């Protein structure tokens, strides 16, 4: 089984470090994961030589769709774009953990991650509590996130341009 970690276009060293910490790597191996791919942005982490699963990193890619689809577990920063991509990726059940970057100003990402957590679509955490989040997400069945309701925006638009003066 395969894990994909992404920081998106941000820099989020504490997420990468939390993933690469010995307890997290041990836990991932214990959960049955054999490979770990990290999209780390500009941050260049040191990979432990004795990691219990294969670890690779890269900086950026034009699209992360393939990597998300290939993974059985996705650990992502809480940006809306990355969350939606992971929530709507096809291919059966995928474990999803959203890690909130507490260092951001005006942190609306926390609210989004928490709301999606409360609705059962993912498990939300901070880098410091990644271990517990990984354990939690493997104890529950996540609620599938609905596809785009393509009739909703047209109905809003009709209301605005045909009804309102």
């Amino acid at each position, binding site marked *: 089984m395969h894990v994909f970690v992404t920081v998106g276009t941000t820099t989020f060293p504490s997420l990468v470090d939390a993933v690469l910490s010995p307890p997290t790597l041990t836990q991932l191996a214990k959960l049955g994961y054999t490979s770990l791919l990290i999209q780390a942005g500009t941050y260049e982490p040191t990979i432990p030589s004795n990691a219990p699963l294969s670890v690779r990193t890269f900086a950026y890619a034009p699209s992360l769709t393939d990597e998300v689809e290939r993974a059985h577990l996705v650990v992502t920063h809480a*940006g809306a774009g990355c969350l939606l991509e992971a929530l709507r990726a096809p291919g059966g059940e995928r474990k999803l953990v959203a890690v909130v970057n507490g260092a951001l100003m005006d942190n*609306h990402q926390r609210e989004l991650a928490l709301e999606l957590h409360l609705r059962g679509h993912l498990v939300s955490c901070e880098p410091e509590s990644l271990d517990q989040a990984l354990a939690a997400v493997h104890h529950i069945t996540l609620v599938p996130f609905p596809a*785009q309701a393509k009739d909703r925006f047209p109905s809003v*638009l009709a209301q605005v341009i045909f009804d309102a003066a």
Partner: protein
Amino acid sequence: MILLFILIALLWLLARHYAGFGARRHRTTLSIPSSNPPATQQHTLMVVLGSGGHTAEMLSLVSTIGREFPYASRVYVAARGDDLSVAKAAQAELARSDTSTVAYRVRLIPRARNVGQGWWSTPWTTLRACVNAVGAVYADAPHLILCNGPGTCIPLCLAAAALKMLGLVGTRLLYVESFARVKRLSLSARIFYHLRLGTLVVQWPALQTQYPRSIYKGILI
């Protein structure tokens, strides 16, 4: 602020007048779509793009606008230098089925402030951005401006409001707050709402409770 815009709008119009441009047709009325065959659909939809997340959400919304709406052309507005948004819009247009009947264009406008720009020159570049916003809205006279919060959208909305007040355009404004905003509106959405520039649509119920004049119909993207 609005007074400033009206002043800019007047200056702009005077400049246009003396440069020899004729008067514009004023579009305000709109018939019901069912009785309106595509051949007579002549309105322009202006779509404001922004940085990564904003553009992706906006193009997702635009992809659901079908031929039941009377838009013969779409104008995408992007900040000068935002090549990624322009490329994404072109990609989205290629995926559409109505491109043979609906034309699309891209209009580039300067940013109010560039990243890393010194504060001493900001008033000048902001003024330039506002004048360009007025020019863009006046030239295209869109029936509707659709925006979701990038830096370029508030100048365009204010320009449209000012020109509308002068009776020069009949533009309606629709602001769709980002899916990322669950409990607190973005600054531009708050400006849009409190100045009553148009219709605000939110994608989470808690925001509709706080801003009762907004519309909530679930997640739209």
